């Protein structure tokens, strides 16, 4: 699924299915605040949603001239953003180790460079595996572990 450039900039901070769940929850919270609060909406949003999602959100909105204070425009923007997340395909990745943030980022970047469409990583750790990973994409599973290579 091809997402608009505007949303691609924001969604770069959403790499895994878990982060997608967090992000959708944050967007839902924003939408709720947008309908209920009458005060300084921008500061309320910054306090409510995690920084890693709030910063790119406001940067992208500002960059594209969407005023955070204009609740109607921002509400529409959030609703479309939320909808763009739905239907994005998932890459299932099972690792033999618990990746650090930097490990995850580099793996994500590699995938982003080599998989042309938007995706989320469904990450699982299986300590019984011997090195490498097991990949699942478009209904196909591939065992790329060292164990599969050293055993018949």
């Amino acid at each position, binding site marked *: 699924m091809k997402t608009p450039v505007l949303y691609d900039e924001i969604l770069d901070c959403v790499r895994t299915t878990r982060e997608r769940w967090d992000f959708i929850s944050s967007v839902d919270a924003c939408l709720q605040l947008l309908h209920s609060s009458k005060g300084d909406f921008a500061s309320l949003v910054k306090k409510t949603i995690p920084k890693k999602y709030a910063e790119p959100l406001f940067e992208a909105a500002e960059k594209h001239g969407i005023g955070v204070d204009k609740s109607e425009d921002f509400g529409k923007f959030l609703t479309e953003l939320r909808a763009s997340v739905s239907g994005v395909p998932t890459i299932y990745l099972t690792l033999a180790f618990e990746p650090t943030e930097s490990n995850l980022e580099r793996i994500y970047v590699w995938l982003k460079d080599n998989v042309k469409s938007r995706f989320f990583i469904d990450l699982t750790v299986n*300590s019984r595996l011997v090195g490498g990973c097991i990949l699942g994409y478009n209904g196909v599973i591939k065992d790329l572990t060292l*164990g599969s290579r050293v*055993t018949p």
Partner: protein
Amino acid sequence: MISDSAVIVAVVVLAVFFGLLFFFFSFYLSKLIMERDKTTELVQFQLSQQMNQNSAKSNEDFTKITKEVIEASIGDSFKIMQKQISEVLNVHKSVVKDSEKTFEKELADLRQNFVDSSNESLTAIKNHVESEGALAKDILSKKVEAEFSKVESELSEYKKAKENVVENEVRAVVNKIAKEVLNKTFSSSEHEKIVIDALEVAKKEGFFGV
């Protein structure tokens, strides 16, 4: 005048006289009747004798004539009857002969029909048996093939299952050894490098559709 006694005597004498007269007369009459009866019997006897003689003769004649008549009659009747019997016999023979011919012909036809029918039945039975035999052979062959392929399939499955068991056991042993040897020595960056290498392999194999 005549006395009473004289009258009485006279009456008595007269009575006796007439009595005697009646006696003799009756005696004589009965004698005559007896003679007449004797004569009658004699005559009757003679007559009967003569009649018997005549009758016997007549009987003989009658018998002779009757016999002649009967013989003549019987002779004619016998001849007629013989002729009729002969004719009847001839007709009968002819009918019997015809019947025999008809019967023989019908028997021959029946025999021929029976033979034809039997031949047809035998041919049909033969064809049926042949087709049934072929069918049975075909079924048997298919069953044998099915059983054979089933056994082959079961053997193949058994072999595969055994191979899987062995493979799993080998994999488990190798994994255990590799894990003990490799995982303990790999850092997270080395793990990451192995993952990226694996992803490169997947990319080269077209896994991501690129």
